[in-house]
């Protein structure tokens, strides 16, 4: 698999293949790149941000994020749990909007406060 390392601006193109002992990593200029490539191969994770509708608030949309990174393969399933969600104002930054998404222990939390209209 070919990857671009995101750990520094150099952006090395890394080739990583599974072998008998673990992984064969090439193209990285430093150990951080190797670590990144192995993590991307074994358990890639991402923070997910999105937004949902607000009712009775001074603003229309509430922005959200996952409070911890979530498995990359679950991004779209996690987003699907937000479909149709409408949050009643007031909301405070940090409020849990969707708890324990897909049983991962990760929560979607509010990234801004919205006052009542």
């Amino acid at each position, binding site marked *: 698999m070919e990857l*671009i390392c995101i750990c520094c601006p150099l952006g090395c193109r890394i080739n990583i293949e599974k072998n008998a002992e673990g992984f064969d990593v090439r193209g990285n200029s430093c150990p951080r790149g190797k670590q990144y490539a192995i993590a991307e191969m074994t358990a890639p994770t*991402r923070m997910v*941000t999105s937004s949902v*509708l607000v009712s009775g608030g001074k603003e229309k*949309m509430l922005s959200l994020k996952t409070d911890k990174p979530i498995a990359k393969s679950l991004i779209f399933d996690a987003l699907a749990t937000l479909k149709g969600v409408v949050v009643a104002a007031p909301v405070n*930054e940090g409020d849990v909007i969707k708890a324990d998404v897909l049983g991962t222990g990760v929560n979607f939390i509010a990234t*801004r406060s919205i006052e009542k209209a």
Partner: protein
Amino acid sequence: MDKRNVVIIGGGPAGLAAAIGAYEAGERDILILEREPKLGGILNQCIHNGFGLHTFKEELTGPEYANRFIRKVKELGIEYKLETTVISFDKNKVITAVNEKDGLIKIQAKAVVLCCGCRERPRGGINIAGCRSAGIYSAGTAQKLVNIEGYMPGKEIVILGSGDIGLIMARRMTFEGAKVKACVELMPYSSGLNRNIVQCLKDFDIPLLFSHTVVDIKGEGRVKSVVIAEVDEKLVPKMETAREITCDTLLLSVGLIPENELAKQAGVELSPVTNGATVDDRMMTNLDGVFECGNVLHVHDLVDFVSEESELAGKCAAKYVIGGGFEADGGTKVETYGGVRYCVPQIIEHNDDYEPFPLKMRVSNVFRNVYLRVYADGQLVAQKKKQISTPGEMETISLKAEQVEALRKAKEIKVGLEENK
């Protein structure tokens, strides 16, 4: 006429940090003027994460980053007026603003800090045939529609330009169920961050086509397709490579321009390279007591550096007021050479009791294995080795006290890029 010590125009990250900087330098009579109903500037619509890594060592979203500064401004009791648009100011620092409650306001300021941010390059700025249909948005407008208004501009998207806002929007629209068909970049490299190329395009198998451009937009009333083609080294489209991609929306992510209309009218001297003011190391423009910082001065990629720069500008504005002005000493102009397009500040003062400052610059192309070097009267004062330097990333050279001192004494200052031989 109302009299104020430090008036800050714009309540985005630059304005907030400038206000805090001025307060911390001992000034108490500070007023922020912001035309939107909220403080925070453009960060309010940047709901993705990746802000503040440098400053807070944690990954915040745009609204969270802005809020840290908004809370501080409120805690310190710094005054601000929202929904108040500055329509002009002059070299005597008389500011004219309007809002619904007070109507027309005139304020005599002792120091003015310009923090108006930047706007997107409009579609008029690029030449594409058939540019009349609906369904063409700048990436920032689309960001506002999706994240603030909750409205999706389209279902099948092509993005022209690989700036960060376009990349971020590729992922955002994908999350909302749209199909992003391609990101088309004129240059052979991207001006966006690597991290965004990987996590916004590659993660979703969205093709990034370098050395390509949009040559035609088709559709009556609404965009139905775009025609793209490869370009040669002179950036001229090779029409034999043209192909059509069906889509209902074209997003333009073709760069930002500092918002300097007010400044220009007041007589602030602008740099043709940055489109921002030319400033000295105290962030003061050619107009006495008028300061500039943040994206209105030069386009930053990371908001952390906006905050840092603006805190310095705020501090200097406070010192200017408290000390009853600065003694003009002319200073020395910073010259650039060898691939460095610009350096901020453009002038370094000789007086040595101001705040320390870094040198910030951008290069004109992708360079590998080079040194960024700073010379004072022919003597090497500072250097930074770069494995790679790209136009998309601002370079910063931090200076130690003795390096600052050497620059202050110099009659000739040069900043440039040299090959590592």
